[in-house]
Structure formats: structure tokens, C-alpha cells
């Protein structure tokens, strides 16, 4: 059986494409790459690849300097339980080198190999044993595998849904991969039920994550503080609250008193006809005490 490969990408929302064989040709142009793939009957799921906002995908890369902007590929490897790692798919991306020396990875695409029968069998065993499905990536994309592989794993029972859903978040720092978060896109609550996937196709979502910059500590001078206080005085009108919200603390005791008075009154009405002289006060006392509680 030929090694059928799904190469899927969505660089813009317009293109959704895949192709039947895996080309290891180094492609220099986005459009070329997209056109070559053509459309494929089995392209059910688009792979969400994110691209940083600095680049708009519509810009043609034909004139870009190949030295500064190079295509790279790195493989995703997987292991079933304690087995050895084998290739599971290929990431291809652009490595953009900035003038200040920094590098960023953009336009990540992921081509997942389909499970072979053997792998299917291994995966089913994992599902039965609730064991780990492990993946790994090189820790440096320019010189793979870098210092060491970056490993992530998930309980196999978390993946099957309709097909096999996976969510890969790659934490990058320049050309280095720090860590990869791998798992199902949704929840996977603890008593994990054994469920075989309906389709043996992967529904992959990949996302690149880079470090967030901490906001700078605000520095206030005295004037700013002073003016802000003034502003507060004029701008800050107290929010109008409902009558109930404002006065509930008065209304509840009032209501209690009213209720108390009503019961008192009804008691008085009851006792008026049956009122005898000597024992009356004591009886009233005994009768009304529980009601007051």
C-alpha cells in the first residue's frame, strides 16, 4: 500500500488543499505549493496553522531573500506506549531571520501520516490498556534534533472522538522548541471510557506559541495621581442601584415587624372572646412565644 499522506494547509482562508504523495521537494513559493497540491477528495479537516500578524499571507514571497527567509522541515515522531519512536508526520514552515539576529518560525503546516495497520493495532492496544501515546519533536528546528527531543504524551483514550482529534501547541523561542503541549482539543475527564475511533484519520490542530512580553510596571508621578483623583471626583457618578438593593437591610426587619404585628393582632383577636382574668397573661405568654421564633 502506498504511503498515503495528507498534506493539509490553510495559509489563507481561500486555499484548502492536500495531496496524495509526500513531496520532499524544497518549495520556495507559497502559491506554487498550494497549486501543486490541488484538491483532494479526502480533505475533511483543515489544519489551523497560525501565522504571526507581522506577515500577511497575501504578499507574494517570490522576491524575498532566500537567505533571510528559508523553508525548513522537521518531523513529528510518535511512540505507542514504550515502543521506539517512528515518524508520524512532517512540519514545514518558514524560518524568518530578522535583521537583529532573531529568528521566528512562521507559516507552520503539518502533514500527518496516516496510521498503518500495524500502528492501528498498536494504538488499539494502547486504548485497551489506557496507556500513553507519545510524540516528540526536535528541540531545534534548524539543526534537528538539537540538544534533545521535546517529548509530550497523552493517554490514548483522550484522542478518539469522531476521528482522532489532536491539538498540538508548540512553544517556540526563536528556532528552538521549548516544549510541546499535546492532547485532545476538548475535555478528557478521569474515568476515561474505552472508545474506538470511528475514522482512523487525524484531525490535527497546530498552534505556535511564543513568549508573551510582560507589561511594563506603571510609573506614576505625583501629578498623574493627583489629576486622576480629581477626575475621579467628577467623572465617577455612583451607579444607580435598584430600590431593593439599596434598602433591603431596612425592608427585611420592617417586614418582620409587620408580620409579627399581624400575628400578634390575630392572637389578640382569638383570645379576646376566651379571655379569663387570672391566667390570661400567662397563657398569652406561652402561646405566642413559639410563634415569635
Amino acid at each position: 500500500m502506498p504511503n498515503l499522506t495528507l498534506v493539509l494547509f490553510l495559509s489563507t482562508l481561500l486555499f484548502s488543499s492536500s495531496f496524495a504523495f509526500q513531496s520532499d521537494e524544497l518549495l520556495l513559493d507559497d502559491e506554487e505549493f498550494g497549486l501543486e497540491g490541488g484538491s483532494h477528495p479526502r480533505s475533511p479537516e483543515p489544519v489551523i496553522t497560525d501565522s504571526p500578524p507581522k506577515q500577511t499571507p497575501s504578499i507574494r514571497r517570490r522576491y524575498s531573500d532566500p537567505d533571510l527567509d528559508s523553508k525548513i522541515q522537521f518531523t513529528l515522531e510518535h511512540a505507542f506506549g514504550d515502543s521506539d519512536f517512528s515518524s508520524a508526520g512532517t512540519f514545514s514552515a518558514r524560518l524568518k531571520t530578522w535583521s537583529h539576529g532573531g529568528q521566528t518560525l512562521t507559516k507552520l503546516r503539518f502533514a500527518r501520516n496516516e496510521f498503518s495497520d500495524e500502528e492501528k493495532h498498536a494504538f488499539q492496544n494502547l486504548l485497551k490498556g489506557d496507556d500513553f501515546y507519545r510524540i516528540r519533536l526536535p528541540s531545534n528546528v534548524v539543526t534537528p534534533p538539537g540538544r534533545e527531543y521535546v517529548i509530550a504524551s497523552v493517554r490514548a483514550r483522550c484522542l478518539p472522538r469522531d476521528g482522532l482529534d489532536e491539538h498540538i501547541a508548540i512553544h517556540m523561542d526563536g528556532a528552538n522548541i521549548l516544549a510541546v503541549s499535546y492532547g485532545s482539543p476538548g475535555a478528557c475527564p478521569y474515568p476515561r471510557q474505552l472508545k474506538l475511533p470511528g475514522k482512523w484519520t487525524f484531525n490535527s490542530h497546530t498552534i505556535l506559541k511564543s513568549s508573551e512580553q510582560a507589561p511594563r510596571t506603571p510609573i506614576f508621578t505625583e501629578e498623574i495621581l493627583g489629576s486622576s483623583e480629581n477626575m475621579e471626583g467628577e467623572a465617577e457618578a455612583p451607579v444607580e442601584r435598584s430600590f431593593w438593593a439599596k434598602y433591603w437591610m431596612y425592608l427585611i426587619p420592617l417586614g418582620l415587624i409587620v408580620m409579627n404585628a399581624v400575628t400578634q393582632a390575630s392572637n389578640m383577636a382569638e383570645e379576646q372572646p376566651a379571655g379569663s382574668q387570672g391566667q390570661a397573661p400567662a397563657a398569652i405568654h406561652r402561646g405566642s412565644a413559639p410563634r415569635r421564633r
Partner: protein
Amino acid sequence: MAMAIKASLLLLVFLSSAIVSFSLYEDQVGLMDWHQRYIGKVKHAVFHTQKAGRKRVIVSTEENVVASLDLRHGEIYVITLSSQGSTLRAWNLPDGQMVWETSLHSAQISKSLLSVPINLKVDKDYPILAFGGGYLHAVSAIDGERVLQPPESSIIYVLGFLHSSEAVVYQIDSKTGEVVAEKSMVFPDGFSGAVSSVSSDKIVVLDSTRSILVTIGFLDGDISFQKTPVSDLVEDSGNAEILSPLLSNMVAVKVNRRTIFVRVGGEGKLEVVDSLSDETAMSVSLPVADDQVAFASAHHEGSKIQLMVKLVDDLETVLLRESIEMDQHRGRVDKVFINNYIKTDMSNGFRALIVMEDHSLLLLQQGAIVWSREEGLASVTDVTTAELPVEKDGVSVAKVEHTLVDWLKGHMLKLKGSLLLASPEDVAAIQEMRMKSSGRSKLTRDHNGFRKLFIALTRAGKLFALHTGDGRIVWSMLLNSPSKSEACERPSGISLYQWQVPHHHAMDENPSVLVVGRCGSDSSAPGVLSFVDVYTGKEISSSDIGHSVVRVMPLPFTDSTEQRLHLIADTEGHVHLYPKTSEALSIFQREFQNVYWYTVEGDDGIIRGHGMKSSCAGETADEYCFTTKELWTVVFPSESEKIISTLTRKPNEVVHTQAKVNTDQDLLYKYVSRNLLFVATVSPKGAGEIGSVTPEESALVVYLIDTITGRILHRLSHQGCQGPVHAVFSENWVVYHYFNLRAHKYEVTVVEIYDQSRAENKNVWKLVLGKHNLTAPISSYSRPEMFTKSQSYFFAQSVKTIAVTSTAKGITSKQLLIGTIGDQILALDKRFVDPRRTLNPSQAEKEEGIIPLTDSLPIIPQSYITHSLKVEGLRGIVTAPAKLESTTHVFAYGVDLFYTRLAPSKTYDSLADDFSYALLLITIVALVAAIYITWVISEKKELSEKWR
């Protein structure tokens, strides 16, 4: 009505707690807190007894403390912290003021030597010779200026070793510092070990095989070697070791578990003159009357210490032989310092200062211990808490019997105190009375949980139980190696764990702690476990576990006797289950699939997550050993990030509520997970001292990593910032402290994590109808939906450590306890480091207690919980909850120890100690009487009205 009173009381409490600052009055000092001063293990001691007046001993210790101790009582008189390495300082003796300081500029840190003339008098100008960093310095004793003044002989001989196989002699003109002559000679076998300077022109060293003694003579600049195999001196010799004491014309060699004294003859001839057991400590020789030189030796025999003073020239003459009974087990004698004095009968008397193996310091004189100090407590490595025994019916606690006169006196004093009429003596008396009446130093559990034991493990491997009431040592125990093998005579303590905390069943068992020790300093050295009964301080059992200890992980499972299951990871990647019982094994096997752990390889910058795999294979393995598999790795790029700090939540922390109500009636769910790891990394360049890099070169990145799946939940980089990072992790927030190079200020950042996946559970109807996922189990394998809020503030102080208060139920608001560079502890409300602080909070936000945003955190002088005290050399702060929800125990350790009880939101759940119950009682009685009287009166009135 009762409800209303309660509500108004609560309101009152809230109003009073709204006052931010925490402070106490002068007369409250010492009521809840105690402070103990220590100096550490003594390295050198100099007696100062010549002059009349205060007799003192000046000591310097391994904790870089120079202290002057009173010889009569052992009280610390002057204490000064000195820095290590490259600075020379002179102090004025009476008051400890620094006279001068000279820093010796040296590029690299090296072993420094110091040579001081013996009779140092201030008015004469002697040079002090100091060697450091490859340079020889001569420093004037008067003002510390680097001078070269001529002593009597003008040539200084310096002997040094090059590459440990070549001896070099320099002759230096002490006037000019010029090298007059230089000679070197290669010794092919190489040197090793300590050097013993025998006389002014001879030293003795060992060769690299440690079996040949080499005498090096350097008379007139000529070097001569003379080799004497140790086997010639004693039969059946193993590796030898030269002991450091300076004995004239004599060298002490430790060989074959014996200490032999070897006299060095005129031509470098060596002869054995005496031998002692190797557990003997010796002092430096001391000149006594009639040109005689004596030295002291001390060794341990059973529960006694044998102290002997002998003449160096004539080892048969024993000037003093004493045997002193020890009050407790302190191990062997480590160091001896002697001092002589003239007795009343004009003969020579000796006093000895001895340092024991547990670092305690004792002064011996006339066959008795004059005083002793537990200096081991200056090097506390780990602290845990333990409960005291419950007060039993049979055991009556002695109550202080008061006579009526005493009682009246006491009340008069109290009255005086409250009317501000008390004199200082009266105040002291009141203080003492308060202490007694509160019964705070009793050895039983109290209702509020104020009385507890702090179990402290010291570097010397000794365990101390300190009472929270007055800080006294309830019991102490020196760790012993179970096997008594030569390789591991005295294990060093690493960490302490709560082994058995009986509460539900097994109530009659005593609680116990697990002490993990190690034989040697290497991390691959075999570990030692010891189980110690907390009530009695006796070791229940101990075992050599035969594998190394990398990490000890208490598991959230206990067996039927409430023994907690622990996993110990070794260097080979195996984990071992303790206790080794079949019951523990069955409990563990049930949860086998759900046990995960992680390792941090700080040098490589890799964090690995592991899961359990199977039982160990191999002959040596038992069924309690398990192999693990690697589940995830986080690899930090070595060129840009270096791990400087990792932190997890305290495993026993209690979180009261999962939700946090916002001002706009919105609900936020805290992301509370026990499996979060906080990691801080800096650029390798920025790992050095503050200011050694430019802001562009340094960046600080912080991570929050789920330790089950290895997911990075939060990643934030601070450009232009630098470590050291001090952090505290509690509930769903982390607060960390670092240095901002751009602003030239320290900063504190808070990160709070909230759970998004539960955010829909806001609708009341959903909650009522049960359509919520609040009770659904949380799995790390679900994709985390969380968001973080963070904010940074400037903080004016450099920080040594940060901790957070912890209370029994987690209801009380929290305070950060910041150990500042001045060795004080600052209590800062968590409200100040709230990421929701805004510049101008709305009315609703103000009502909630949100403080307007400021750029820096306030340091309120009243909120120093150490008030006027200093915890010298502060290293750590431990907090433990009391039973009373409002109160938390705080224990700070460094060279000194400090303890106090804190109530971050005031004691809203208990009355003050000095609450007048009598007044309350009188009021109630008066009210009842008034009710009765009015009732009688009204009855009468009613009756009279009816008769009318």
C-alpha cells in the same frame, strides 16, 4: 436578635480589620514571640582573659559570625557578621565596633591564609600577612593600610606549591616587598592534603598516595625533601591524614583509626612519641609558665568526655585529666580550644572550649560544664511542625497555686498597669504574670492550637523540637547511622517529612517524622532513613536504604495506621516505595497508573516528567522498587535560558473557596491545581550579580508548567530583568521578586490563574438544576482553558526569602511574609499585590477592598513582624496553621531563630487574652438581678392594681 448582634459584631470585626497595618504595643513584645540568637559552628576561638574585667572568648564561626562570648555565662556580647573571602577587618574588642577594613583585591577566589603576630597590641605596628588570590599582602595592624613595615627580621619566607607537585620558596624583603630570591624544586610524587608547619624552617606534608610523609626544609632558601613512609612509623597503615593543629616540632597524623604524634628531629628524622584513638580532638599548643608548651586533647568515652592537657615536650606529663559527664548525646568532640589561668593556689588551671559533632559549644572548667550552647540551631536545613500530646485525665498539669495575697497583688498590678501608673519593674512583673497565667509553655495540646512543636533538622544531622510557647528545646536527637560502618559514621540531614499524623484511627499511636539523611555530600551517596517519635524524641527505627536520594515525594495516601506513603527517587531513575509493607504496596498498586513525578535538571536546563512503568528487574531489586518512563520534557535553549528558580505549592495547603466574586457580581473560578510548577529562567549572562549585564542582554522568563502533562500554561518574559528570583506560590497565584535593570529597581510581579472552563457556571438556575460541571473531576489531560491576570509593582527592598501565611481553613486573608535584606520580616497584605488594582477603583471595588493602584508597594514600619529584632542571616520562613482559623504560626530561621503568631485579619474568632471575663460576668449577674427585681416589682404592682 442574636443574629443582629452577630451581624453587628461581624461588621465591627470587618471594620477593625480594614485597618491595614499590623502592629503591637511595646508591652506586647515577647508575649507571642520569641527570639534566640546563635552563632554557628565555631571555627576559631581566641580567649581574652588577660586583663581584669569581663573575661571573654572571641569566636569566629562557619556562619561568618565573629562573636564575643562571656566566659561565665556564654552570653553573646558582641556579634558581627563578616563576609567571606577577600576582606580583612579589625574590630575594637570592648564594643565590637569595626576599626578598619581592607579589601584584598583578588581576581579569583582562592583559599586564603592569614598570619597574625601573636601578641597583637594596638599601639605597636605589626604587619599582618594575608595571602589571597595569589597575592601576599602585608597590612598594618593600626589602620589597615597596606604597608610594608620592617619587623625584626627583614626577610619573609614564603613557601608555596605549584601544581601540587612543585615546592617554591620565595624570600621577600619585608621593607619593599621585593622578591630577593626564589627557588623551586619538583617533587615527582606530588603532594596532597594538609600542611603542618612544624618549625620556622620545616613543614610536613603527605605525598599524593597518602602513605609517605615528606618533610620539607627550606632553611636559607634551600629546599630539601625527606621522605618517610608512614608504614615505618606504624605497622599496617592505610591512608594517612595530617591533622592541622600547630604543635611545635611535632606533627599529628591520623592513620589507621589512630592519631599518632610524630616528633620531627633536627635532621628531619621522624619518630612516633604517642598515639591516641582517632576520635580525639586536639587544641593548638599554648605556652604555659616556665617556657613550657602544653596542648589539650579531648575524646569521647561512653557518655563522658576525657579532657587531657599535656606538655608538648614531655608527653608523659599530664597537667590535667578530667572526665566530664555529658547531659545528652552530642557525638564526638570536634575541636578543642584551651586557655590557662592562675588558680587561687597559684597553680595553673585550664579551661577548655569544645565544639562537639552536633556543633554545640561547651565550656569546661574544673571537671564540669560551665555552659553549653546549641549552636547546631544556627544551621537549620528543614523545619516541620508537630502536635503536642493531648492532655489526658490522669495526667494532671501542675497549676500554679495562688494565695489570696498573691491574687490581690496581681490584680493591683494589673490595675496599675491599665492606669499607666506602673513602674518598669511593675511592667516586668505584669509581663511575667501574663506569661505564667497563659500557660503557653505547657507540654500538652491546647484548644486553639497555639502550642505546637517545631521540629528542626540541622546541617549536623541533629533534630530539635522547639516549643512554640517559649522556644525551649523539648528534646533533641542526633542522627545515627544504622550500620555504624566506616563509610557512614554520621549522616548529614537533608529533609524532614511528616511520616505519621494520627487523627482518625490509630489515635493511640504517637505521631512521627521521617528524617532523610545522606552519607556524604555527594548526591549519589546512599541515603539513610530515620523515623523519630515526636512526643518522646526517640528514634523508632532507622535503616540504610542502599540507594541514593534525589527526591522524596509524599503521596496523598496513608495506610491503616496513618503512615503516609512516600516515594523516593534515586539517581538511576528508579523510585522506591516506603513504608515497605504489603499494605502500602497494595494501596500504591491501586493508584499506580495515576502517579507522576518530575525532575528538574538545573544545569542542563531540562525538566522531565515521568510516569510509573513497572517493577524493577534485577537481583538487587525488591518489589517496592519501580521503574519509570519519560512522559514529557521541556528543553530550555541553553544559549538563552538558565533555570534559576523552581517552586510548587505547599502540598498541604487548604483552599477555602474555588470562586472569587468580582465587583460586578461576576464570578471567577480559581485554577487551583496541585500539579503546577513555577519555573524562572534568566539569560545565562544575567545569571551573575545584579548590574553585571546591560538590560538588553538579560531577560527573565517565568513559566507555569503542569507537571502531569508538561503543558506550559503560562509564559511571560520580562525584558531587561535579572534574578535572583524569590517566589511564593499559593492557591492560584504566584508572587515573585526580581530586579529590573531598566528601572534600577526591584520589582514584584503577581500572576493569578483563573479557570475558564467553569466560567459558564454563573447562572443560578444551572446550579439549582444541577446542570453544572463543578463536581466533575478535573483532568490534566483536558485542554486547559484558563487565563491569567498579572501586574508588577516596584518594591524598595532587596529580598532574601518570601513566604505566605497559612491558616487552618484558608478563610483568613493572606499576608506575604518578606524576609528583607536587613534580616527582618515584613508582613504585606496580599491585597497590595492584587492584579485587579486599578488607578481609580469604582465605589463597588473600593467596598470590596481594592486599593488604588500605585507603582510601588508600601513598606509600613509597623508591619515588621520582627519589630525591633533581627533574625541574623535569615534563610527561610515557615508558616503553619493554628487550630484557630484566624491565627498562623511563623517561624523564621537563619543564624538566629524567631517565632511569632500572626493574625492577618486580626483575631476575629477569639477574644483578646486580656479580655475581662470578670466584668462580663458581673454585667450578666447585674442584668439578671435587675430583671428579677423589676419582675418582682411589676408583679407587686400588678397585684396591687388588681386589688384596687
